[in-house]
């Protein structure tokens, strides 16, 4: 057992103790607390919690590596995952907040006045969150695998046990405050190494301003080596794939049940707007740093690791080779490691960076703790979404309406445990890189919830049969496209599996419109409810007239 192991483990355990402490302190008692935190979280903190919920293992562990390996083409992830907040905050959040429902399936069921639609939405929630959590578990596998220097699969199994235990414990109320702590841990862990690297390489403590210089140097190096240039667009994928992926990630963001549920935890529409703004600011801090990571790591690997002799490579290479995520082969037998002979998995770039840059045991340990915070916080939110869909929308509303609150909580907790274990089994042999698996979840969300919610909020003529057909068509098209692109090599316009959402969304939107127009218009009450969503919370729309809510005390105060 070396010092590194003890320091990393110590930091992970200390931060875990903190989260669990907070969760225990706020232990959920009522069903409403378990799912939406009693609606009294201030906007700034809700923004942080959204940030922690949002920034998963894909953002923390996977994204910088993806940008490093894909160059400009990897930036689709940066813009897609931030731009989605525009769609969410402008087009959906305030209206969903006003509707006053607890979960996305509940909103869809009530808006479209159809329990079939609610059931389909619940099943879609489970499929999307499940896919997403596979990415989280395989991320925690990378971290734990490195920590214990064991195979990533064994790391994943340990992660499953941790996440199942942790998510079943708290519920949303515990999770909101825990996630504030997790955001702080993960952002500190992410920024410290990149700031140090920036100091080492450019003598400037602000990586965001300094890495442009490194990017220019990379261009020169690429030309010398004769490899595809880092900043040149569309070398790894086509222009259409870039645009399709960016759309998929944006629309998916606006349709992810575990993110949307965050906007129910704020007291007012005003707070919903501010929460979204704060969330993107906190998220942006990490997203603006990821390309800096990518540039610095690539620069160090190209100038300091490649070109050195195979016999005396730095010590960190051995531990990563042991996890099966790094391979070094002296293909031409000259005893020197060439850039082309270094095969690095995109999922380890961030985790290996502090070691590559030789930043010391504490920073490496902090990184591990931060990555675990990212994987755990998102997995926690995902598991709550799965358990809400199963226990509230499927069990309580469709199977056993007489169920007591205790029984529903119990069903919720068990569904968390089962879902985590099942996702863990798939993650043992992950079907793709972390960012890729997560992009599939986004593709599914943009093919189902995005159209159903956007049209549900903005078009009162959309009806039950339309949304049922639309969600089914969107889900099917997206799934078929992902599978045939990933395993069958079938693509349109060079758009691969990760851009599938663009087809799913288009198919679903067309289906909802066509089927809705071909069938009976929704009832007058439903249409009035949709009209009502147009106006701020203080206004109520009824029978073509608008009323303003007032409390008697307030009238006195304002005179």
């Amino acid at each position: 057992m070396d010092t590194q192991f003890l320091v990393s483990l110590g930091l992970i355990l200390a931060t875990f103790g903190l989260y669990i402490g907070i969760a225990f302190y706020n232990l959920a008692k009522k069903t409403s607390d378990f799912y939406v935190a009693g609606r009294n979280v201030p906007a700034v903190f809700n923004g942080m919690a959204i940030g922690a919920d949002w920034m998963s293992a894909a953002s923390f562990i996977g994204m910088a590596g993806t940008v490093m390996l894909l160059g400009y083409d990897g930036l689709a992830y940066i813009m897609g995952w931030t731009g989605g907040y525009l769609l969410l905050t402008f087009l959906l959040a305030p209206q969903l907040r006003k509707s006053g429902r607890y979960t996305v399936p509940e909103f869809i069921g009530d808006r479209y006045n159809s329990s079939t639609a609610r059931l389909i939405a619940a099943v879609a929630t489970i499929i999307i969150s499940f896919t997403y959590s596979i990415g989280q578990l395989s991320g925690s596998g990378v971290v734990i695998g490195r920590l214990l220097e064991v195979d990533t699969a064994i790391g994943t199994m340990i992660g499953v046990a941790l996440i199942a235990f942790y998510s079943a414990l708290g519920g949303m109320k515990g999770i909101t405050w825990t996630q504030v702590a997790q955001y702080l841990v993960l952002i500190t862990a992410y920024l410290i190494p990149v700031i140090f690297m920036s100091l080492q390489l450019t003598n400037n403590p602000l990586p965001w301003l300094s890495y442009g210089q490194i990017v220019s140097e990379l261009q020169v190096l690429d030309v010398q080596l004769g490899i595809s240039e880092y900043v040149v667009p569309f070398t790894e994928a086509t222009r259409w794939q870039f645009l399709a992926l960016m759309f998929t990630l944006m629309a998916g963001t606006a349709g992810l049940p575990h993110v949307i549920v965050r906007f129910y935890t704020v007291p007012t529409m005003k707070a919903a707007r501010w929460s979204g703004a704060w969330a993107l600011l906190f998220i942006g801090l990490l997203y603006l740093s990821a390309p800096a990571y990518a540039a610095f790591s690539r620069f160090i690997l190209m100038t300091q690791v490649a070109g050195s002799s195979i016999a005396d490579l730095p010590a960190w290479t051995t531990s990563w080779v042991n996890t099966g995520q790094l391979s070094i082969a002296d293909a031409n037998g000259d005893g020197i490691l060439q850039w082309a002979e270094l095969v690095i998995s995109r999922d380890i770039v961030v985790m290996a960076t502090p070691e590559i840059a030789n930043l010391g045991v504490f920073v490496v340990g902090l990184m591990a703790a931060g990555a675990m915070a990212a994987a755990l916080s998102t997995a926690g939110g995902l598991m709550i979404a799965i358990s809400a869909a199963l226990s509230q929308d499927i069990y309580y509303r469709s199977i056993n309406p007489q169920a007591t609150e205790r029984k529903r909580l119990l069903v919720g907790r068990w569904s968390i445990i089962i879902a985590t274990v099942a996702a863990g089994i798939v993650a043992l042999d992950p079907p793709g890189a972390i960012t890729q698996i997560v992009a599939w979840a986004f593709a599914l969300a943009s093919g189902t919830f995005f159209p159903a919610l956007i049209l549900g909020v903005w078009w009162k003529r959309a009806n039950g049969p339309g949304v049922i057909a639309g969600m089914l068509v969107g889900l099917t098209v997206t799934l078929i496209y992902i599978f045939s692109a990933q395993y069958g090599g079938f693509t349109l316009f060079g758009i691969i599996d990760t851009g599938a959402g663009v087809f799913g969304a288009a198919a679903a939107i067309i289906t909802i419109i066509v089927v809705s127009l071909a069938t009976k218009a929704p009832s007058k009450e439903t249409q009035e409810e949709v009209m009502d969503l147009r106006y701020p919370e203080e206004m109520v729309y009824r029978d073509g007239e608008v009323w303003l809510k007032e409390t008697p005390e307030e009238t006195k105060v304002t005179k």
Partner: protein
Amino acid sequence: MKLLRKIDKKDADAYFRIRTTLVVIYLLIGFSASFVVVFFAEELSGFSINGFPFHYFMGAQGAVLIFIFLLFINAIINDRIDKKFGLDQGKKK
């Protein structure tokens, strides 16, 4: 106890119209910063900002900063509009 006071539907619709117009403007700006710049990436790579070719700068920093800016502007302006229409949610509860 909530009391209801009828207001002119025109006022309520004016609120809705202002908000929707602004949202459309914000989304158009966001769309240009991301999709349009990506579409013309090669054409926009000719000049650089701070060491980055322009298209790379927009993808890695410019677009994200614009998104954040838009959300805060929206929150601030919308609060002002609320006030103008006599809605002040801060006082509730």
